[in-house]
């Protein structure tokens, strides 16, 4: 098939798949369902009926939802070209990086091998790391050395050097996250001249914008890092938070000034956010809004496919939060807070609400 035929095929596939996404009000309705009803609705009944602990059920549900998402991804990437497929897989590689972080934390804290294994996600070969080989390593440094011989060599090398110097998991994980978004931005820039590039810049850019704003506030004001240290942790976005803007923002010494200096629509969105959790919730709304826009109005099949996957992931994450809330018997307001149905207010007000 040629590119036009592939795009038409992909657009059709995405259009069919998009009917499975939540419509406005669906999440609020699902939040009212009991655990059994949720299990039935999302075909997770057999897992929830297993005579095992709530923790094991919760892990199994999470694994099943991730598998569902990644199986859809496997179908959608089939007709894509090399670069587009690479970009979508780079987005999905976050799950492999979750596994990498789990392995690193386990190795740093000398956890039991079985305990580490129980917390790893089972991933399809397209996004999987060589888990078994990594699993055999006996320290974080050895693990990173092992990774240096694979596709994550640059990330691994820098992460190892940082870890050897600082011996702290935070710097290591920050480097991994930073590299993940930098790789996404790099792949979008490689689509130069591709019909999907404009939409991809918006879509992937919104994800990078979201990470940048949260990191900027956290590193600069919560961890009190210097402007230069903060800037180095950020990723120039192909959308709003580009390099020059990041340089200007990190130089500001007050969070209010940073919010005021943000471009629209981010400034309007975050002006009265109040705390980091609410900022996170609103930034999620922002990137989901862009994904919805690309899915509805976009012309590129690849961009629409990625937009679908981003929204689907959000939906499935909400389903997982609802189920976990039920399994842990959490009060309704907490669950609604977790799925973004309520604004994040400070702790004593949550307790009042509960």
């Amino acid at each position: 098939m040629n590119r036009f035929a592939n795009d038409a095929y992909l657009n059709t596939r995405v259009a069919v798949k998009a009917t499975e996404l939540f419509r406005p009000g669906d999440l609020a309705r699902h939040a009212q369902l009991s655990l059994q009803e949720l299990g039935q609705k999302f075909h997770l009944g057999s897992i929830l009926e297993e005579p095992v602990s709530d923790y094991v059920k919760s892990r199994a549900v999470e694994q099943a939802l991730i598998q569902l998402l990644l199986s859809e991804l496997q179908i959608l990437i089939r007709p894509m070209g090399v670069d587009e497929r690479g970009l979508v897989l780079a987005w999905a590689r976050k799950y492999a990086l979750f596994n990498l972080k789990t392995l690193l934390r386990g190795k740093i804290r000398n956890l039991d091998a079985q305990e580490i294994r129980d917390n790893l996600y089972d991933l399809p070969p397209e996004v999987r790391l060589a888990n078994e080989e990594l699993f055999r390593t006996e320290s974080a440094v050895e693990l990173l050395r092992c990774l240096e011989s694979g596709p994550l060599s640059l990330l691994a090398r820098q992460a190892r050097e940082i870890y050897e110097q600082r011996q702290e998991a935070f710097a290591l994980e920050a480097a991994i996250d930073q590299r993940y978004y930098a790789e996404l931005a790099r792949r979008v820039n490689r689509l130069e001249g591709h019909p999907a590039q404009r939409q991809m810049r918006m879509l992937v850019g919104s994800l990078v914008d979201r990470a940048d704003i949260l990191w900027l506030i956290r590193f600069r004001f919560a961890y009190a890092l210097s402007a230069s240290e903060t800037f180095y942790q950020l990723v120039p976005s192909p959308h709003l938070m580009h390099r020059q803007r990041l340089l200007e923002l990190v130089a500001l010494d007050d969070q209010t000034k940073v919010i005021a200096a943000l471009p629209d629509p981010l400034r309007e969105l975050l002006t009265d956010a109040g705390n980091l959790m609410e900022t996170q919730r609103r930034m999620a709304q922002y990137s989901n809004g862009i994904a919805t826009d690309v899915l509805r109005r976009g012309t590129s099949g690849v961009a629409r496919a990625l937009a679908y996957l981003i929204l689907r992931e959000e939906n499935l994450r909400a389903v997982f939060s609802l189920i976990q809330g039920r399994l842990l018997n959490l009060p309704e307001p907490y669950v609604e807070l977790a799925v973004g149905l309520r604004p994040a207010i400070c702790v004593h007000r949550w307790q009042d609400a509960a």
Partner: protein
Amino acid sequence: MLTPQPMKHVRILALREDLPLISLALAETESFHPDPRQTEDEKLAPLVDCSYQKEYQQARSRLDKIRQVIEVPEADMSEIRVVGLDELTEVNAWLGEAWESCLRHQEAGRELDERTRLLEEQETALANFAELNVDLGSLRGEKRFLDFYVGVVPRENVRRLEGALGLAGHLLFKYMEREGIAHVVIVGPTGTREAELGSVLSAAGFQAVPLPHGLDDSPGAIQAELKQRRATIEAEQAELDQAVAACEVAFRDELVRAETVLTLAEPFVTLDPAIRSSGNLAAIAGWVPARALPALEKRLADSMTHPFSLESRRPTEDERPQVPSVPVRSRLLAPFAMLVKQYGVPRYGEVDPTLLFTITFLVMFGSMFGDVGHGAVLAVLAWVFRRKLGRFYVFGLLAGGSSILFGFLFGSVFGYKTLIPAIWMSPLYNPVLMLQLALGWGALFLTLACVLTIYNRFAVRAHMAAVFGPHGVVNLTFYLGLIWGAVSLVTTGQFGLVQALLTGGALAALAGYNWFHMQAPIGEKILMVLIETLETVIGYLSNTLSFLRVAAFSINHVALMIAVLTLAGMLGTVGHVLMVIFGNIFVIVLEGVIVTIQVMRLQYFEGFSRYFSADGREFAPLRLRRRAPAA
């Protein structure tokens, strides 16, 4: 050889403490395929205490990693004995220490590599600076107002680092880039922001390139200093190599012991999923070839001191898909078995197609590539490269042999038709006959494939599918009627009433069967039945015609050689010889590859897709695996 080896399901009940002994005895027989399915007996549960397995996994992983640094000798299997948990734990602990030691050597090697790389970068940097009219000596050491950093940084980080340093009041100049590494000079005011700067530089992977003392010396003196440093690194590398060699010698005996212990412990670990236990009692389930069962029972009786019970039974109908199939074990058929395995493993009860595949492959390959000389070249090459080809060299020998045989039938040696008399005739002398024979061969091949399909389905008790299913009895009746009718049409000019009744009746039966087994609205049913019936007719016709390629390639082979010899005839003596040589090489390589692909295509698509479900399980018995000495 065509029918599968009968298998028995075996259940061994024994004391739990005897499990390592039983697994070792079973591994020695090499006839026990573990069955991990959940037992019906609810009192028996999978083993909970996995310390043996955990120790083994960690020890094996450590030994494999050690193998990447030093040579690990082969296991000493002169004495087959049970390995207890204590011994395994002890070996694992020793391997942990040995790995730490190897890891230190590995890290030391990496550090030396890194120093060598940095030295190379330094040499490159200095060569670059040499062209500048700058006193580099003044960049070294602390300055009152300005800080200078000269070093390297990964190319990807330069731009971000530049921005970050700008925020700290420093400037970054990139003056060179090679192999993904950027050489930079950083300049900024001395003072208050050193900690901040250090943190950013470290996050960016900045490595300072030290400026040597005496930069104001002559270039020769600087070169001598760098040479001295390189010599130091080389000396350290030699020391490290010696240390690794000494480590290899010192660890040798313990490594043999570790490899032996792990080889002996492996069967128990492999058997683990097939073990169920309750209290002191344990049960092991698996599959054993019926004829190997007495030897297995005797081996267990000889090695066990405590009582045990062994129950065996034939596989039930339900568990047939779970029963492993024993592959054909023959040196001659081994390469063909590998090709069959590429498609799949026969289901237990089905015909193993390896022998049939071998015969039909050789017949088709030989007839399409029939030439004494070309076949001899293939056979000789296979023999010369037998070490590299492994078991696959037999494939080359047999394929070459088949070409030689057909070469004698066609009277062809490297394309020359006059060197030897043809036992039969050259394919080009009567192409129509060749095409007819190819069609006949195709009809025979497809008939045989249908017969095997029917046999396989009856063998797995799928009676309805054997009669009405694709390539079943009804399909075969239709096909034979069609062939008979076609032959009558060619010879007598009439299709024939009986033949018409056979084909028509079979098609009607097929359509009727489809009609009653289809769940769809009436309009869709009519459409589907018509399409499926038509597809049967077209499918058999096109599949038979597909075999015309056997004759086509046979004729093509001759025609290509005629072209080569005609071109050679147009040249002088040297040109003639060269043309014949290179023409033959061209034909052997090109046609050899094409013919192999075409034969494989006929085998896989016209043969295997009909009668070979290929979803079986391969018999993988528990065995003592011996590893190669070094990775």
